[in-house]
């Protein structure tokens, strides 16, 4: 690669064809209200952790729905499980339960978490 001075760029596109939707089903079986989420962002707006670190629960949740698992564990470690997001959700989504279950699901799938 050194002699070329560059390497071939990798795609960032979400390819739905390569997504395993069974993983999403695991979440929605445990937390059916996750299906109702309309990604409005009220959760991210009220998030206590987001005051201090760059974290959006909305985006993390969305990426999980789209099968993009690679950075979710690290993102979820920013959550303090305070539950404010659950209080404000206009669709009654159990956001706190989603976070809790995502950690279990991703751990089972061997997506590594950075130790706190």
């Amino acid at each position, binding site marked *: 690669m050194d002699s070329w001075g560059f390497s071939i760029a990798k795609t*960032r*596109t*979400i*390819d*739905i*064809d390569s997504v395993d*939707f069974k993983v999403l089903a695991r979440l*929605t079986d445990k937390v*059916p209200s996750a*299906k*109702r989420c*309309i*990604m409005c962002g009220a959760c991210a707006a009220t998030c206590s952790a987001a005051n201090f670190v760059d974290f959006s629960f*909305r*985006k993390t949740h*969305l*990426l999980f*729905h*789209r099968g*993009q698992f690679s950075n979710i564990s690290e993102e979820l470690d920013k959550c303090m499980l305070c539950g404010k997001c659950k209080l404000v959700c206009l*669709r009654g989504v159990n956001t706190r339960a989603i976070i809790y279950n995502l950690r279990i699901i991703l751990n089972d799938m061997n997506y590594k978490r950075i130790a706190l």
Partner: protein
Amino acid sequence: MKKKNVIVIGGGPAGIEIAQILSNYSCNVTLFEKEPQVGGQIKRIDKLFPDFIVQDEMMQKLISNLEKTDIQIHTDTEIKDIEQIDNIWHLKTNKEEAFTADAVVLATGFKTFDPKYKEELGYGIYPGVITTLEFEDMLKAGKIQTSAGEEPRRIAFLNCVGSRDEKVGNHYCSRVCCINAVKQSIETKELLPNAEVFCFYMDLRMSGQFYEELYRKSQEKHGVNYIRGRISEASSTFDHRIQIKSEDTLAGLPLKMTVDLLVLMIGVEASEGTTNLSAKAGILGEYGFAKSLSLHLKDNLTKKEGLFLAGACKRPSTLREVIADARAAAFEVVNYLKMEING
């Protein structure tokens, strides 16, 4: 007193409803319909949003009301010309017949956008790309299948085809597509529980009664996926499926997938009859629709005395709005001609 003559142009839900009401008053009502039968474009729909009432049954009620009257119905007849001379309206048909009336109701309705103008979406080029009406035909037949006769594994609905699009000259929202996509996605999941359904939207305009609830039900009960983003192009893959590309604007990432059917939620445009007669009568509004005198208080009146508007000839409207509007227009006609109800 001599009976007044009223002409209703257009035999869709608006025309049928207003003609039927007016026939109860002291006037002769004549209804013109360019197709062989009355009923209008709604006939192609299987079930109506948001309550899944069977369209056919609902329309049969309207039509049977009409059949009880002494209205003269001219089917296969298109009004080509309209002109007002000394308070009398003179109309000419495609059969070169002439009619006169004291009042005319324009109920000429809409047409759907021709998606061939959006070549990048591949309609008319790839058989896997179909319109919401063609999809409705499948729902009516109770069987959703690809052009190869196979059961689709994945279906995408794309909103705003021909609406909110400067490139085709339509800046406006067509109002009915968002909820119709929700309806059709639910019906899809009822027929094909294992199919994956994706709905692409820019804004989901769930403004009518029970719309938001239906949207929620589609997610909760049926697992319909919603992606905020407008599909930029559709192309055929090697195995004749359809590759679509959009941005997932809520993730801020480009997104692509392959589907078996891409259903285009084609928008609403003024019908040719609406544009042609509005122009001839001098009441042409924006985008070829007919222009009412005032949106809020005189929405069934025009700047021409004795010329009234009913239904979707003014703007994209839902069926519920069209029928209510026809009833309101009837009231205006009765008022104008100072008619009394038949004894």
